[in-house]
């Protein structure tokens, strides 16, 4: 995490850009944006010390709506971009925004290795169990029986379990949130950003257009009945056996973050360029 500016109090509005979001009214991502700006204000981080990195999809529009540094990258590659940024600019607070399609399918392999590598950054996945921007194709977290014109009768494919995979791959902080509780989500984001290493926050964020059934999530979510554990074994059992609507911080690890010494090599840029000469 970058340095907190104790000289001034930041407001949520300080982190919001002048661009109006174009998400569908009722979309959970509006709440996630509120949670982002609220968390940044609570942390007291100057906007220019935060970088919000994303890939492609509805959720990945979020860098444009914040007043921080942002990078709207290519599909599924946000974690690679973010890791590169963080190791070269460890002074920045790096937050990565993604969705279940971008993050778990196209970017699935990056997800595993980002958890394993444990670079100090926060990965937020807005999971709506559907590809919303491209009009409703099943994503890795779509239920097997979810019936659409594209997948008549459902895909019959077992959904991806992101929290378990994050834990098994080495993520150092794991939480699940619900977009409809933006202040609680902001509180979790604050903890995730402060926690050293790779923090993974899955936010259940309903797609009101292609998954109107997800409005029911509001009544299904409930606080995690026990406090976060530091024991990966216990965390695995809890996450594997919960109902998918358990909200809160579920695991706090104590692995040392990966951070190569900046400028550790003496290679000049011109030497690297020689390798690419035609």
């Amino acid at each position, binding site marked *: 995490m970058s340095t907190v500016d104790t000289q001034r109090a930041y407001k949520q509005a300080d982190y919001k850009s002048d661009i*109006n979001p174009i998400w569908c009214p009722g979309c959970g991502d509006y709440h996630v944006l509120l949670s982002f700006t609220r968390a940044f204000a609570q942390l007291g981080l100057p906007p220019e010390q935060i970088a919000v990195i994303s890939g492609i999809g509805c959720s990945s529009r979020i860098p444009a709506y914040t007043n921080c540094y942002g990078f709207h990258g290519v599909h599924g590659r946000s974690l690679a971009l973010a890791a590169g940024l963080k190791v070269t600019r460890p002074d920045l607070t790096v937050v990565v925004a993604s969705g279940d399609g971008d993050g778990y399918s196209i970017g699935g392999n990056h997800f595993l290795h980002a958890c394993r590598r444990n670079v100090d950054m926060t990965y937020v996945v807005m999971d709506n169990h559907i590809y919303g921007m491209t009009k409703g194709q099943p994503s890795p977290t779509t239920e097997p029986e979810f019936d659409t014109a594209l997948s008549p009768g459902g895909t019959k494919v077992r959904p991806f379990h992101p929290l378990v995979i994050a834990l098994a791959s080495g993520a150092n902080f794991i939480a699940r949130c619900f977009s409809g509780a933006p202040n609680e989500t902001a509180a979790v984001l604050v903890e995730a950003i402060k926690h050293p290493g790779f923090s993974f926050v899955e936010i259940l964020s309903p797609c009101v257009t292609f998954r109107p059934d997800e409005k029911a999530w509001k009544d299904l979510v409930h606080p995690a009945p026990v406090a976060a554990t530091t024991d990966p074994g216990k965390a695995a059992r809890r996450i594997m056996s919960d109902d998918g609507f358990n909200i809160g911080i579920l695991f706090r690890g104590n692995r040392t973050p990966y951070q190569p010494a900046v400028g550790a090599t003496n290679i000049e840029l011109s030497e690297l360029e020689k390798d690419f000469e035609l």
Partner: protein
Amino acid sequence: MSKTAGNPKVSNLNDLLAIAYQIEIDAVDRYKMLADQMETHNNPELVKVFRDLARAEGIHGEEIRRLAGDFDVVAHARQIANFERSESPEEVDLGSAHYLMTPWHALQLSLKGEERAFAYFTSIVETAKDPKVKALAAELVEEEAEHVNLVHRLLLRYPKPSDTWADDLDPPVSQE
């Protein structure tokens, strides 16, 4: 002293003024967000309703600021009026928005917000020990009751739409 789970602590008159001010300002921000959403999705009737509601809440906020006199209610609100876990009482639920919603729906959202604010200040009247805090909270309860009545009166202008209000002749469909 009065404290409700997840809500900021009310220890004195200045705290209550700051919280009351912040509740109105939070509502202004939320209505502006909804107006912007409706503008993006070309629902001009709702843009006007949400902008009017934002303006009304802003006027309430200014009234509280005037009531506070020389006390800097804005700065104090920034320090203490944080609804850490719960939502600020008058904040409208963004998840309830719909691109085809009508003024009736907007006013229903507003009504819920006013009712939550009414319940919030009522809880302070019931739990506050300081008589000055209790008296101001009682005034705020009366004001919120007036706002509830006002929304009910506005609702007379906008009858409940038919059950087909969300039918779209050109709906978003899954790619085939």
